[in-house]
């Protein structure tokens, strides 16, 4: 028997997940069997997958052909470094999420546990297939299977109409996106009819067709990733899904779209992108990021807040991809590598912290049955595990040192910083300003995350029942700790990780950062040179920790450690009940006010004459009103027109037939 190649191991992982899923159908009602046996098993598969991918990184590509698929186009599979990076992400993130899920799913949540298990593992397997696919058909099959299984997962709790409509919107946009992707593949074959990726790589498209393919891919993958304006499904679907599923969707599935975009724009579309591709991606990314973060600050549903935050992060990723394309088109490979590394790193980082945060909301949801920020508060007391681990996620997602989010944002900003070398004066001026927008986005993300954490976990409990909330169970804790650990590791070991993912960068761009970085040692992140820019998270962390501990010790030694408890001072203000705290809406009031025009708000402000004064504010999406509703109206109008054809009168029907015949007789000529 020949030794098992990594690609075989990946295929075994796919099969294992499918089998685990099917095993769930053996006893669909047996919750214990499914959650305590199958889900941990799935987590193990994830771990093994991550390890395999990690081990593979740096090797040459491997291909395989399965005997299934279309007669002329069997499933082509390929494992290269780009795939491996994302498989690594999938494996490690899903390991944590699956372990968490083992403790999460309870009885009586709509779909039977066995079915849920099937859908869940099918989802995982299809994501892995997306990463491995090396022809358009296999890709589309995996891609749509992924959409389908996640759709079923989203609608797990389908007795609520809003969850159903969220699922509907999700699948619809996913389908439209898939159509765009298919078209893009079609363009890339440039009429050869061979839909394998290998063939697409060999095609030399004219700029027009290459651009069409690129834009279609941007639309298609953007629809999955949640780029504006095809983002509307995301804030609906993520809250609707059970938390582990939200975590998977946000942490991993969105990345498959990024993967696809990278695959198309760096790999399949040949080596020479046009400069404006990068600008388009950057513009879309900036708009998305700003949009996402602004809307995330004004949400009052915790999962929606996170969903919008995912949109923001996807926007940042698109910015990075755009930047890399820009550098690449101007033949600046090192800078392109820098931007691309930032993208890959951010993918990993986001997978870690966003999954973590979504899982935390899951625990909160379980403990309190409440998603609305207005009814939470003070949960750090009953749920310390969740709260402190959520804090890790919050800091990481805010892009603050020393955790994972900072490294990627740092790399991205570094890439921006060197853009003024571009041989294009307009870009030279505009691109740095875009960096300021990125900074604004990062700072606003901080705002949103402070809101998220502060309102949920800090302050006084806004409802009586919250005091009885229970902390996460052991399984859930393991999952959370794993993901928090990933965030920490990504935060403090950037050089090590970059030297791993560098293989993907090198594969796509021909050059990487690792060689330069090796000279500086593993503790220092200095992508270009230490004189130019450097970051040593370990020292960073050590200094802060040392001064923290030292300060604490010194104060205790020199003075004392006495503490007295008393009611809060609050400037002597008497009414200190939980209602006196800021609400979620109140917290975001400055944002709503400053960026008023960017929101579509319907607010009611009480007057002194109101018998029953109340305050309400509803923030809606401009895109929904200006893009989607008109589109829906257009379709409705059209279908109204078409429906008139079927007027019920037989004479008219005969007339159609008659006129068709006469028309053809008179007009049709070969």
């Amino acid at each position, binding site marked *: 028997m020949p030794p098992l190649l990594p690609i075989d191991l990946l295929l075994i992982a796919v099969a294992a997940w499918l089998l685990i899923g099917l095993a769930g159908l053996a006893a669909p009602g047996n919750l214990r069997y499914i959650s305590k046996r199958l889900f941990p098993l799935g987590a193990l598969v994830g771990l093994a997958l991550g390890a395999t991918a990690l081990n593979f990184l740096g090797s040459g590509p491997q291909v395989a052909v399965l005997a299934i698929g279309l007669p002329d186009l069997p499933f082509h599979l390929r494992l290269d470094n780009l795939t491996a990076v994302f498989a690594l992400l999938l494996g490690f993130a899903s390991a944590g999420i699956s372990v968490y899920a083992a403790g999460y799913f309870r009885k009586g949540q709509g779909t039977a546990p066995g079915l849920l298990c099937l859908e869940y593992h099918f989802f995982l397997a299809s994501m892995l297939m997306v990463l491995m696919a090396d022809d358009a058909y296999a890709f589309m099959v995996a891609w749509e299977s992924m959409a389908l299984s996640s759709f079923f997962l989203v609608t797990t709790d389908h007795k609520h109409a809003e969850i159903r409509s969220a699922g509907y919107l999700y699948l619809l946009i996913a389908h439209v996106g898939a159509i765009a992707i298919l078209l893009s593949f079609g363009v890339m074959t440039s009429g050869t009819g061979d839909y394998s990726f290998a063939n697409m790589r060999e095609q030399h498209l004219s700029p027009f067709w290459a651009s069409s393919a690129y834009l279609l891919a941007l639309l298609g993958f953007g629809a999955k990733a949640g780029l504006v304006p095809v983002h509307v499904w995301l804030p609906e679907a993520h809250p609707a899904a059970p938390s582990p599923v939200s975590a998977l969707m946000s942490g991993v599935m969105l990345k498959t779209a990024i993967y696809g975009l990278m695959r198309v724009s760096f790999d399949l579309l040949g080596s020479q992108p046009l400069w404006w591709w990068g600008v388009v991606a950057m513009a879309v990314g900036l708009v998305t990021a700003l949009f996402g973060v602004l809307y995330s600050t004004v949400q009052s549903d915790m999962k929606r807040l996170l969903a919008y935050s995912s949109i923001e992060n996807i926007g940042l990723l698109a910015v990075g991809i755009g930047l890399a394309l820009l550098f690449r088109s101007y033949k600046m490979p090192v800078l392109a590598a820098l931007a691309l590394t930032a993208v890959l790193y951010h993918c990993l980082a986001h997978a870690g912290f966003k999954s973590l945060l979504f899982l935390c909301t899951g625990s909160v949801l379980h403990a309190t049955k409440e998603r609305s920020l207005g009814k939470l508060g003070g949960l750090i007391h009953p749920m310390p595990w969740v709260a402190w681990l959520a804090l890790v996620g919050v800091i990481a997602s805010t892009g603050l040192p020393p955790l994972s989010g900072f490294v990627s944002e740092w790399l991205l900003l570094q890439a921006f910083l060197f853009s003024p070398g571009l041989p294009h004066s307009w870009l030279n001026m505009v691109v740095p300003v875009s960096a300021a927008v990125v900074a604004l986005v990062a700072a606003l993300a901080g705002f949103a995350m402070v809101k998220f954490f502060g309102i949920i976990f800090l302050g006084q409990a806004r409802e009586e029942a919250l005091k009885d909330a229970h902390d996460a169970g052991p399984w859930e804790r393991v999952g959370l700790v794993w993901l928090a650990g990933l965030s920490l590791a990504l935060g403090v070991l950037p050089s090590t990780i970059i030297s791993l993912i560098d293989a993907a960068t090198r594969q796509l761009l021909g050059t990487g950062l690792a060689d330069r970085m090796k000279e500086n040692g593993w503790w220092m992140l200095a992508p270009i040179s230490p004189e130019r820019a450097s970051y040593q998270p370990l020292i960073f962390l050590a200094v802060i920790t040392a001064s923290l501990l030292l300060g604490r010790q010194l104060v205790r030694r020199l003075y004392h450690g006495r503490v007295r408890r008393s009611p809060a001072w609050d400037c002597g203000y008497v009414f200190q009940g939980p209602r006196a705290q800021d609400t979620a809406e109140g917290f975001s009031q400055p944002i709503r006010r400053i960026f008023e025009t960017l929101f579509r708000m319907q607010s009611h402000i009480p007057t002194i004459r109101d018998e029953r004064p109340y305050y309400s504010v509803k923030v809606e999406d401009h895109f929904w009103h200006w893009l989607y509703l008109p589109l829906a109206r257009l379709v409705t109008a059209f279908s109204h027109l078409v429906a008139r054809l079927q007027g019920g009168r*037989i004479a008219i029907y005969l007339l159609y*037939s008659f006129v068709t015949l006469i028309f053809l007789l008179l007009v049709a000529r070969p």
Partner: protein
Amino acid sequence: MDLFTLMLAIPLISGLLLTVVGERAWAPNLNIIASLGTFLASALLTYEIVATGPRMAFGEQFFIDSLNVFLVTLTAFVGLTTSIFSGPYMRNEYEHGRLSVPRLRLYKSMFQLFMFTMLVALTTNNLGILWVTMEAATLTTVLLVSLYRTAASLEAAWKYFILCGVGIAQALFGTILLYFAAERVLGESGNSLLWTHLVQVKGQLEPTIMVLSFIFLLVGYGTKVGLAPLHNWLPDAHAEGPTPVSAVLSGLLLNVALYAILRCKVLADGAIPDNFAGNLMMGFGLLTLATAAFALSRQKDIKRMFAYSSIEHMGIITFAFGMGGPVANFAGLLHMTMHSLTKSAIFFAVGHATQKAGTQLIEDIRGLIRINPVIGWGLMLGTLAILGMPPFGVFASEFMILTNAMKYYAWATPILLVSLGVAFAAIFGKVQPMVFGETHARPLPHAPAITPVFVHLALVLMLGLYIPPYLTNWFHQAAKMMG
């Protein structure tokens, strides 16, 4: 008696027999057994044909080649599953008081006769006989459509009869013209309507006549296929007839009508230059697709909606065959198969669903997955399959059609894609709340025969991931034959 005769004889004889004994308690079983026999005969016949190649029967009046043999198997198969499905379904209808015993008898005998006409239409070599059996198919099903004798079903049956009758009359005119063209080449032998002979001389047929002939044939048989704007009978007939009838209308009749067009197209292509027939079919296909897609979103009746979906898919298939070429023909054949299997599965599921809910109105059917998860999932998966979601086979064929269109007829792709998108939005938006959500429906007296649904869907799923080589060869041969 050879297999071929057996295959034709079983439905004919059992159909006649059932008119006599159709009221007995065991009649539904006879129906199933007859269908099973037909299916077995056709399967064996297929095996034989695959092993030995095309053959003739009854002189040259019948012939079986790679194009029709798979349709024969498909027809017999869907006939079998439909008969299995209709057993409990019809018993439920009877116990709900919607049907009387004589009408059940009528249903069973007409069902078998309809199968007979379908099989003859598929295997006949004589274009005249083809016409006769197409007309006979209308006649056998028109009484089935009005089986409930309600105002709506009568109206539907009347429209069905008149529109298809007129359509088929035009097809006859086309056939006459074809005969006329053929006679000029083949002389006044009796062979001038035999397709095998015609195809030998298709290059010599007079183009002027063939143009007219093909227009008449296309408009005529196209009415039966449901091409827009000739489709208006189709939603009514599907919605108002009993569900098994809807299933066979969608799954078989439309296919056979399209098959008739295909046979004629092969001849027209030989005679008329510039892909005239293909362009015409592509035009009709796109128009049909777009019309159906936009009509979908306004449907309130579930069966009516899926009838429109059938129209939509007929549009796609017509377009595919219009494009021509090995890939598109292959895809068209595949899509025909997929559509038959999937759509009949959907109608089975819908049948049970409507019976459970006691209504066909979409907004009154809710939470199927709660009443009966099997029906709910059947409908959900069937719907997703018909919408072209991988890994179901419909996607495979749509993928090939789309990619082929992109390659040769890029202008058509936007229409295709927009229509598919709109259709997706419409159908899925309506089916999802039916399957999901809460409900208060009561259980049925007889357990549904749900196996056919899943057998069909399993086949569709399998074909989406893996098309066995012999099937591929077979489709390839057929596609090559169509040129």
